[in-house]
């Protein structure tokens, strides 16, 4: 409903835009704040079906557990998960913080790694020949095997978890960036060259901005694996974190608290996922609107 209104507004805006040589400020597009507000509204109203679906699922689950009198150690009811989780909120929170820290540090480091790797591969032929195959090979290392080795090499601290996160997340963003660089129009490269720009100017002023939409697509893939990777890193060997918490509560047969930790994990992933959209809209304000117009055309 509000989505369709937003779209018709775009069409009308387009039609109303004058193309007279004499247009002297009369047809300046509408304020950006109203646009932003509408965009947020669209996004929220778009989430309703998903929330409704989730509510139905949770309701069914509750119903089944209550009606069949399932043992809470086997499958706790959502209500029990919620209330027990709330009662143990401080322990949960204390174990969530380190996981957040590992995830964020890991993602940021992975971004650094993929920026350096993709730039090197894009800018230099030897790097393409040497690094690209290694990169692909790195993805065939089973995390299952390498994570315990990280613990042996680097101990029980922050580093091994961050490394697991990096290993799992740098690949999607690197590949996305490379694809993005390659999607640059050759004519646009020629334009920069005709202006006297060299390889590096072309890279900064053309290839990097061209790659941004690809990058964010890759980042979303990376982010959706990141929390899980951090938890796996903890599960292999740590003293705090959601991975440790789940393991302990599982051994204590507190399935309800395991589920509570899972809910926190899912929430973390979703927040991170949503953040990528916020960052994307902040860095590429031109992107969403130009795409909307294209879709209409």
């Amino acid at each position, binding site marked *: 409903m509000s989505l369709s209104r937003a779209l018709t507004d775009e069409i009308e805006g387009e039609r109303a*835009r004058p*193309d*007279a*040589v*004499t*247009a*002297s*400020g*009369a*047809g*300046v*597009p509408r304020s950006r704040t109203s646009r932003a507000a509408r965009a947020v509204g669209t996004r929220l109203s778009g989430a309703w079906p998903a929330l409704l679906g989730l509510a139905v699922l949770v309701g069914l689950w509750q119903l089944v557990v209550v009606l069949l009198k399932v043992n809470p150690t086997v499958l706790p009811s959502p209500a029990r998960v919620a209330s027990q989780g709330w009662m143990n909120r401080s322990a949960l929170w204390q174990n969530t913080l380190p996981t957040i820290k590992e995830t964020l540090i890991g993602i940021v480091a992975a971004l650094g790694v993929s920026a350096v790797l993709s730039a090197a591969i894009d800018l230099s032929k030897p790097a393409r020949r040497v690094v690209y195959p290694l990169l692909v090979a790195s993805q065939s290392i089973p995390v299952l095997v390498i994570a315990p080795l990280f613990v042996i090499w680097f101990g029980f601290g922050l580093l091994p978890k961050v490394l697991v996160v990096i290993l799992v997340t740098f690949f999607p963003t690197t590949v996305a960036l490379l694809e993005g660089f390659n999607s640059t*129009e050759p*004519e*646009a490269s*020629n*334009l*920069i*060259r*005709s*202006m*006297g*720009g060299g390889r590096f*100017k072309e890279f900064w*002023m*053309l290839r990097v*901005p061209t790659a*941004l939409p690809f990058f964010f697509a890759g980042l979303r893939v990376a982010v959706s694996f990141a929390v899980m990777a951090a938890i796996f890193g903890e599960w292999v060997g740590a003293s705090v974190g959601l991975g440790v918490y789940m393991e302990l509560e599982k051994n204590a047969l507190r399935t309800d608290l395991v589920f509570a930790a899972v809910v926190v994990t899912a929430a973390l992933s979703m927040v991170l996922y949503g953040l990528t959209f916020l960052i994307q809209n902040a860095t*590429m*304000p*031109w*992107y969403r*609107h*130009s795409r909307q*117009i294209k879709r209409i055309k």
Partner: protein
Amino acid sequence: MTKSRATPSQFHGGAAIEVIDVSKTFQRRGEHLAVLDRISLEAAAGEFISIIGPSGCGKSTLFNILAGLESADGGKVEVNGAVATGASEHFAYKPQKDLLFPWRRVLDNATLGLEVQGMKKKDARQLVEPLIEKFGLTGFEHCYPYELSGGMRQRVALLRTVVQGRQIVLLDEPFGALDYLTRTDLQLWLSSMWEQFHWTVVLVTHDVPEALLLSDRVYVLGNRPASVCCVLDVDLPRPRGLECIGTPRFAELEEVLLTNLRDPERANRSSSIGSAHLIGDGRVDG
């Protein structure tokens, strides 16, 4: 390479260019594709010349050679009498597509060339801002390209081209993708801009009236491999407006060009029409 710092006065005037016997053959999967066959043409400083020819005959290839993006197999290019083959710094090139960068606002697209040349963004903006009004972009400086119509996009691309402060402007079918009315508007506008600034302009087009309306001289290229098959001096009085299109002289010149374009061979045989100068003959003036 010296970094050219453009000043507003540099937006005026231009340099003489001479293209002498430029040839080009592409190698494609072992096959040779001869595209340009000893092309020669010239423009004095501040002249507006057009190159017209069937599509696929090698017009864009010639521009790529001038702009230093492609190397010529033979011949040379001279700017103000000095050899400038493969040297891009004399030419401001506007390729066929407008190629506006979607992430740059209108003003920032216009300053692209200056920034590439190493000028600070602020200085570049100061240089470009006075021209915004002349290019009919007032009020749109801070719009993104997706907010513009086709005609405005072309004007931004033209602005980006001329502010580079280079001596010769190369325009590759700048209005090819526009509707008739917008195109005519922009042709008249470009004509008036040129009369103010007197850039040296080389325009590629396949629109006969466009070539006549704008140019001092028209070079007709034949089919691939292209060579210049006809040179036509356009002696229509300036400034030229819409009314110029209705004059008998315009119609005469139009017919000469069309005849040469449609059948270069036959036109060559009966070479006495109009002011067409056919390669090998002496120049016939109106």
